[in-house]
């Protein structure tokens, strides 16, 4: 392997490989071509995180493409983690976009199935799912390590991506979740970002199983954290977001904080979580998804004690 034993040479890979506790952020592209709006959002994250996930038509709502937004981010000196879902593209478009974003400086990507379009703002659309997320992971690995397209033809200048995947420890059937994680790692995932964690006991069980199965030795697991802005947001997520596990006790805690103080209580809970993850065996970092709350990331990072971010050459 060239590049000092690095698979992609991305900042995120270097930080993780050097044994630092990684801290990644997230930025949803705008619902339009408003580049200034995009820049304003990701500028909050500059220097505060190791890489920024750029979502791909998240919740099946059409936005500026994750490819374009990732490229803009890279050109502005912030490292993107390009998200790609299987819902909207077939294998030709996926491979083409992987080559495209790589050529524009993208070095990390997160391979996802994608929310069903039924949730989104174009439920009439045809879905693709030519390949699934595990096959996408394997495809990116093949492109990177073998320098070949899915059909075994050679790639002229293979894309060297640091390959990410998602894991939802809270979806059902619970017993199978760690095996699905194992499948993703077997397929080639270098790092994992989990769904937002609120049920800490369940996550502790999950990561313990992952450690026992040796999975945390094979891939870096970043625990997903989304600070709650209010008790109402918590209730909404508990009820409306598929595969989300929000304990009643957390909702009560937010309610108990009183009017005007719920957001601060949500941030406090997130910081408590990050503190615990720093010490938790098998957890290599945190993925902070501050949804439409990018401007709060510097404060959360500061208070969670993850600043300054390490510089690894």
């Amino acid at each position, binding site marked *: 392997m060239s590049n000092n034993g690095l698979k992609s040479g991305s900042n995120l890979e270097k930080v993780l490989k050097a044994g630092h506790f990684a801290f990644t952020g997230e930025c949803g592209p705008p619902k339009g071509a408003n580049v200034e709006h995009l820049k304003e959002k990701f500028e909050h994250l500059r220097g505060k995180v190791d890489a920024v996930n750029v979502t791909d038509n998240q919740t099946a709502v059409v936005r500026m493409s994750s490819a374009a937004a990732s490229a803009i981010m890279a050109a502005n000196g912030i490292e993107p983690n390009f998200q790609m879902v299987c819902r909207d593209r077939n294998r030709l478009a996926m491979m083409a976009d992987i080559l495209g974003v790589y050529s524009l400086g993208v070095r990390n990507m997160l391979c996802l*199935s994608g929310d069903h379009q039924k949730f989104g703002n174009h439920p009439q659309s045809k879905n693709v799912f030519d390949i699934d997320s595990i096959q996408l992971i394997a495809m990116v690995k093949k492109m990177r390590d073998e320098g070949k397209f899915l059909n075994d033809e050679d790639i002229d200048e293979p894309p060297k991506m640091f390959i990410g995947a998602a894991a939802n420890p809270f979806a*059902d*059937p619970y017993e199978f979740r760690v095996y*699905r994680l194992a499948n993703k790692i077997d397929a080639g995932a270098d790092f994992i970002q989990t769904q937002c964690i609120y049920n800490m006991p369940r996550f502790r069980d999950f990561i313990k199983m992952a450690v026992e199965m040796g999975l945390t030795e094979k891939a870096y697991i970043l625990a997903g954290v989304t600070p709650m802005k209010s008790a109402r947001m918590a209730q909404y997520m508990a009820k409306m977001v598929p595969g989300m596990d929000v304990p009643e006790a957390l909702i009560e805690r937010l309610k108990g904080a009183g009017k005007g103080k719920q957001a601060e209580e949500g941030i406090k809970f997130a910081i408590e979580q990050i503190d615990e993850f720093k010490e938790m065996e098998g957890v290599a970092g945190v993925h902070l998804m501050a949804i439409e709350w990018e401007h709060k990331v510097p404060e959360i990072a500061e208070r969670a004690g993850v600043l300054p971010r390490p510089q690894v050459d």
Partner: protein
Amino acid sequence: MIIADRKSLEEILDMIKDFKKILLVGCKGCVTVCNVGGEKEVGVLAVILKIARKKEGNPIEIDEKTLERQCDPEYVEQIRDIFDQYDAVLSMACGVGPQFLSEAYPSQRFFPAVDTKFFGGAVQHGIWEERCAGCGTCVIHHYDGLCPIARCSKSLQHGPCGGSADGKCEIAKDVECIWDTIVKKKMEQGRLEDLRTIRAPKDWQTARDGGPRKSIREELVQ
């Protein structure tokens, strides 16, 4: 079998609004079994259409005929003597029927009275569910006889996705997560390791993605 639902009365009335005399053709195949386009349903629809048109002050004459199968040229011939006595023909067969009729009688106009939906069966009286996507390469043996291509909303070969909760699919609480069922069956039978296999991307050439399909049985071709 092929499952269909009858189109709404409004849609059918709109399709045939310019015609005074039509032939309503049922089929004794799948649509009879799923109670949508057999002899009985032909009779009911004919009555409803006639009443509706009479109310509009624009009466319509409707003759009824139910063929053994509309997807077989031999039976399609059964209307050879009468097809041109009508302004139009309304078919209650699946989408195959009106096309076979159109091909056999190019001078006549054919309209579908049903929406053809899926390959499935009755899970209880009056409720039909999809079971097969007709992808052309059956893989259900990998999943203990359950098909994720047809029954997972995302056709995942490696499921369940992160949206599976309480055995239900993320798209709706009344949709079973087939992957939940597959996993539980494997666990009950102590064969969860089967699901640790990473499968190659599916070759969709045998599905509709490869273009319109044809099946040739050499020994039967004259």
